[in-house]
C-alpha cells in the first residue's frame, strides 16, 4: 500500500464514519430518552435512499403508502384513546398524521425535477415514520423492560425489511450526487459529495449540541434521559420526549440515507448493516456519551476502510468483532450488580 491508497482509504473511512456517527447519535438519543434500542434506524436510511432513487427515476416511492397507512392507523388509535378518556396531544398528533403526510403526498404527486424538492419530499416521507412507529409500536409498551422493547425493535426491523423488499425490489440503486465538485489536494482527489457528507454530519452534531444545550425541549429531553419518573413529576410529558426523540431519529435516518445513496449502491437491506455499525460505534460510547459515540464511529469507519483493502471478505467480521474488546473493557470496570429496569 502506498501513501496515496492510504489517503484514499482514510478519506473513505471518514465519510462512512460520519454516516455511522449520525446513526450512533440517533441511537444514543433514542435509547437514553426512551430506553428503546432502535434497530429500525437503519431501515429508515434505506427507505430514504431508495425513495430518493425512485423520485429521481420519476416514480412515486411506495414509502408514501406506508406513511399514509401508518398515519391513518395512528389517527385511529389516538381517536380511540381519546374516546376512552386518555389525554391526547392533538396538535402534535395532527402534525404527524395529517400535515406532514399531506405535504409529502402533494410534493410526491408533483414529481419534482429539482434536486432540492426531491430532497425535501424524501425528508417529509421518512422523518414522520419515526414518531408514527413510536406511537404505534412502542408507546403501548412504554413501561416494558429494555429487553422487551428491544424485541419489539427487532420485530419492527423484520416488518420494515420485508416491506423494503416489497416496495423497492431486490435491485440496488444509486442517486445523483449533491455536488459534482472534484478537488485536487496534495495529489489526492476529494469528491464534493464526501465534503457534503462530512459537512452535514458536523453541522448536525452542532445543531444537536445547541438543541440539547440551549433549547427548553432539549433540556427536557436530557432531564427525561436522566430520570424518567422525576421528569414526569416535573411536568415533562413522556409523549413529548418519545415524539421528539423519534422524530430526530427519523430525520437523522432520512438525512443519512440521502447522503450515502450517491456514494454506494443501496439495497433494501443495506440499511440494517449501516445501522448496526452505528451500534458498534454507540456501544463504544456505552450508549450514553455522544462524543465517545462519534469517536467510535470514526474508528469503525477507518477499520472498515482498511479492512476492505487488506482482508476484504472479512471486513464485516472485523468491524463487528470490534465490540468484543470494548465490551470486555467495560465489563472489567463494572463491579456491582444492578437490577434491570
Amino acid at each position: 500500500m502506498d501513501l496515496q491508497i492510504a489517503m484514499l482509504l482514510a478519506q473513505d473511512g471518514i465519510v462512512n464514519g460520519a454516516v455511522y456517527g449520525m446513526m450512533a447519535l440517533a441511537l444514543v438519543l433514542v435509547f437514553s430518552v426512551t430506553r428503546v434500542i432502535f434497530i429500525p434506524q437503519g431501515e429508515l436510511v434505506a427507505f430514504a435512499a431508495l425513495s430518493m432513487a425512485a423520485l429521481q427515476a420519476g416514480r412515486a416511492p411506495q414509502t408514501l403508502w406506508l406513511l399514509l397507512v401508518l398515519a391513518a392507523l395512528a389517527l385511529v388509535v389516538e381517536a380511540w384513546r381519546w374516546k376512552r378518556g386518555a389525554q391526547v396531544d392533538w396538535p402534535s398528533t395532527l402534525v404527524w398524521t395529517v400535515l406532514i403526510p399531506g405535504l409529502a403526498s402533494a410534493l410526491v404527486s408533483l414529481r419534482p425535477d429539482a434536486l432540492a424538492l426531491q430532497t425535501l419530499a424524501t425528508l417529509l416521507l421518512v422523518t414522520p415514520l419515526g414518531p408514527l412507529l413510536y406511537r404505534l409500536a412502542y408507546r403501548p409498551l412504554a413501561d416494558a423492560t429494555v429487553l422487551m422493547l428491544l424485541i419489539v425493535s427487532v420485530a419492527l426491523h423484520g416488518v420494515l425489511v420485508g416491506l423494503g423488499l416489497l416496495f423497492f425490489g431486490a435491485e440496488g440503486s444509486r442517486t445523483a450526487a449533491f455536488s459534482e465538485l472534484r478537488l485536487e489536494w496534495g495529489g489526492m482527489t476529494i469528491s464534493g459529495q464526501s465534503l457534503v457528507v462530512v459537512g452535514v454530519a458536523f453541522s448536525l452534531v452542532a445543531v444537536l449540541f445547541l438543541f440539547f444545550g440551549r433549547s427548553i425541549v432539549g433540556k427536557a429531553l436530557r432531564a427525561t434521559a436522566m430520570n424518567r419518573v422525576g421528569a414526569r413529576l416535573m411536568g415533562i410529558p413522556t409523549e413529548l420526549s418519545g415524539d421528539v426523540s423519534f422524530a430526530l431519529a427519523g430525520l437523522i435516518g432520512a438525512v443519512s440515507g440521502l447522503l450515502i445513496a450517491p456514494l454506494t449502491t443501496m439495497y433494501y437491506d443495506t440499511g440494517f448493516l449501516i445501522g448496526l455499525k452505528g451500534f458498534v460505534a454507540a456501544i463504544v460510547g456505552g450508549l450514553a456519551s455522544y462524543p465517545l459515540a462519534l469517536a467510535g464511529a470514526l474508528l469503525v469507519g477507518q477499520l472498515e476502510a482498511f479492512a476492505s483493502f487488506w482482508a476484504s471478505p472479512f471486513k464485516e467480521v472485523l468491524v463487528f468483532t470490534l465490540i468484543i474488546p470494548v465490551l470486555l473493557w467495560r465489563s472489567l470496570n463494572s463491579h456491582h450488580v444492578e437490577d434491570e429496569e
Partner: protein
Amino acid sequence: MTSRRLTVLFVAALALAWGWLPEYSITLLNYIGLYALVAAGLVMLTGVGGMTSFGQAAFVGLGAYATAWVCTSAVVGEALGGFVAPAALPWLGLMLGLALTSVVAWALGSITLKLSGHYLPLGTMAWGLSLYFLFGNLEFLGGYTGISGIPPLTVAGVSLAEPRLLGLVIWAALLLALWALHNLLDSREGRAIRALKTSRVMAESMGVDTARYRVKVFVLAALLAVLSGWFYAHLQRFVNPTPFNLNVGIEYLFMAVVGGAGHLWGAVLGAALITLLKAKLQDVLPQLLGATGNFEVIVFGLLMLFVLQRFAQGLWPSLARIAQRFLKPEVPAPAVVASTLDQRALPDAGQVVLEARAVTKRFGGLVANDAVTMNVKAGEIHALIGPNGAGKSTFFNMVSGVDDPTSGEVVLMERAMRGHPARDFALLGLSRTFQHVRLLGTRSVLENVALGAHRRGRSGWLAAMLRLDRAQELALRNEARRQLERCGLAAHADAPASSLALGQQRVIEIARALASQPAVLLLDEPAAGLRHLEKQALATLLRQLRAEGVGILVVEHDMEFVMNLADRITVLEFGSVIASGTPAEVSVNPRVLDAYLGGNEAWTEAAA
C-alpha cells in the same frame, strides 16, 4: 386427568401416529422438533433468565458445520482414518460442536453478562452476523456454496438416513431436553435462575453468583442450539450459511416469544405455529404480492408486535388457563427421606460480628455517610434510627455488600470486606431484608423462602436435571416451611408471594433471611405495614433469635418498637452518628431530641 397425564397422552399419541403420518407431515414435524430445541433454550434465556440472544442460529450453525466438517473433510479423514470408524465420525462432530460452542458462548457471555441486559443481545447480533460472513468466506467450509455429502447418522448399525427414523430420535431428544429443563427449574438451582430476571440484587444477597448463573444459562441455551444443528446437518445431509443467518436467529426468538417465553412447552407451541405458518405463507404470499422473497417476515413481525402488546406472556399461558379448567392439580411426588442441610456454628454471644470503621459514602458532592463507626455483637439487637434521608439505607447497602464505601472499612466475622460482592457477605453468615420488598411475585411464598437457604444446599445443575437432588430439595423445602411457621405464615406457603399484603411480604423477607441460618441479620424497616399484634409477634421472634445468639441490626421508624426491643441504638442524622448507647441513654440525648423534635423551627411549626 392431571397435566402430567395429558403430556404423556400427547407423547403417546404422537408416537403411535408416527408410522402412519404422510411424508410431508413428518418433514414438518422434524423441523418443529429441531426448532423447538433451540426455542427451549431461548425460553430458559429470555422468559426465565431475563436475557436474550439473536445469535442462536449461529450456534445452530456451529453445530451443523462442526459435524459437516468432521464427517467430510479429507484432512480429518486422513488424520483419524486408522483410529475412528466412519460411523463414529458424527459423534466426534457433535463433541467438537459442543466444545467449540461452550468456549464461544462462555467467552461471549462472560464479557457481556456483567453489563446491563441489552449488551448481550447486541453482542449476539454482532456475533450472529460475523459467523455468517465467516462461514461464507472460509474456503475449507465450502464458502457460500456450503458442504454436501454429509453421511447419515448410524446408531448400533442401523442407518437413520430415513427422515422418519431420524425424526423419532429428534423428538426423543427434544422431550428428554424438556424433561431435564423442567427438572432444573424445579430445583434449588432453578430458583436461583428465576431470580436472574428481576431480582439480581436480592439473589446476590442470598449468596447467588448471578453473573455466573447468567453465563451458565446462556451456555446451556447455546448447547441446545448445537444439538439442533447437529441433527439438522444429518437430516439435510448438506449445509450452507443461509439457515444460520441473523434473520433466522430472530425467527427463533419469534418462536419463543409467540409461544410463551416463560414456559418450556411454549417453545414447542411457538416452533409449531411459526413453522406451519411459514410453510403456508411461503405458498400464499408470493402469489398474493406478485413477487418472490422472504415476505413472511412482515407477517411474523406484525404477529410478534400483536402478541407482545396483547399477550405479553405469549400464547401458552392463555392455552394453559383454558386447560386448567379441565385438569386436576398435580399430586405431589412421593416423599423421599430429606437429607440434612449444612449448619452454621454461631459465634459466642458478645463477640463482635459486624463492624463499620469510619465508613464514608459520597455520591458526587453529596456525603450520604460520613465516617460512620458502629458494631453489632452476637446475641444483641442493635437499632439504627434517624430521620428520613439520614443515610440509613445507604449504610445498610454498604454493610451488606450491595455497594462499596468510598472510604472506611466494613469488617464481617473479623474479615475485611472491601471489594467483596454481596454474595460473599451471605456466605460468611450475613442475611438481610430490603426496604422495598424484593420477592419473586409470581412464585410461591415457600419457594421465595427456600431461595434464602440456597447456599445450604450443594446439588448442581446435572443432579437437578436428572432428579438426583430430591432428598436435598425436600430438606430445603422443609427448612423453608419451618421458617414460615416460625414467622406465622405457614398457611400462605403455597400462595403466590405477590398475593399477600405488603406487611406480610416483609415477613416473607424475614423468613427468607432466616432460611440461610444467619449469624448476622439486617432488617430494613421490618415493622412497617404490620398491625399491632403482628408487631408483637415480630418482637417475640426477634427476641427469640437474640437468645439463640444471632446479631441483629434493625432500621426502624416505629420508636415504641425500637425502644422496647433494642439493646443498643445508633442515631444517624445527615449521614453522621449523632448519638449511640442504650435506649434509655439515647432517649434523653439532647441532640437526638433536637433531630427528631426540633432544630428546624419552620418544620416544628408546620407540624404543630
